[in-house]
């Protein structure tokens, strides 16, 4: 895996966007939505044709890696081709505010939903204003 890792020079506020590969295999970058609320960060990624067994989501050294292999489905002779699925691969640099524990992943209709809870210190604290 080492050759596909994100370079360590990336700054924490600029997520790693592209990955250089040295393998022959082609990689696709899945489109993602990332949004956050007070308690968690949600990542949605389109991974069509991927079954649970071939999906690999991991966090190492603050880098979130999504890697997925779509099922091969090529019977018959091809008449017309518009898309070709290949291994999906994408990495993101996480900040310290995301907890390593309790990351929840769900795969449904070709869409991966990841919920990354924030650490307690990063959640906004409501300070009550007393009127004296």
């Amino acid at each position, binding site marked *: 895996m080492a050759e596909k890792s994100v370079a360590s020079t990336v700054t924490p506020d600029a*997520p790693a*966007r*592209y990955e250089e590969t040295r393998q022959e295999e*082609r*990689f*696709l*970058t*899945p*489109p*993602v*939505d*990332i*949004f*956050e*609320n007070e308690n968690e*960060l*949600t990542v*949605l990624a*389109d*991974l*069509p*044709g*991927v*079954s649970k067994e071939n999906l690999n989501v991991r966090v190492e050294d603050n880098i979130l890696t999504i890697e997925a292999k779509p*099922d091969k*489905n*090529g*019977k*018959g*002779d*091809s*008449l*017309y*081709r*518009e*898309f*070709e*699925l*290949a291994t999906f691969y994408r990495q993101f640099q996480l900040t310290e505010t995301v907890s390593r524990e309790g990351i929840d992943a769900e795969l449904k*209709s*070709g*869409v991966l939903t990841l919920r990354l809870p924030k650490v307690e210190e990063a959640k906004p604290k409501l300070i009550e204003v007393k009127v004296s």
Partner: protein
Amino acid sequence: MMLARDLFREMDALRHEIDRAFQDFDKSWAHGGRSRIGFLPGRSARSYPLINLTEDENGLMLEALAPGIDPENLSVAIQGNTLTIAGEKKAVHPDVKVEAFHRNERAAGRFVRNIELPVPIDAEKISADYRQGILHITLPKSVEAKPKRIEVNVV
């Protein structure tokens, strides 16, 4: 003379700036491969969903790339030789405020696509199923389109 040199320097700076703008674009689209598998990205010149069509002796198999759709919002119809795939991809997160987004690359919206089929199809026997974000449609050929085996008699 002075004016001319300044003009060239300015043009050079402008060229650099344009190059830089396109570098980012190139990396994310041309090399990142996102555009090749995107679904409804920007409702651009291409038709969505993207399809693959294969054939064997019994019929045609069509795969349409449509991740993240509720199957209830998907419809497949055939009239003559025209297959129509229509549907709507709902935004999964309508409540999320715009400023809460770090990235928003997955599009949502309605789509419709008509596909002209190359062989006559038995409309009664078409089946479609949606799994893992891909719509699989099996289109059996009509009897007259199937190859007929002719036995050779030895005399």
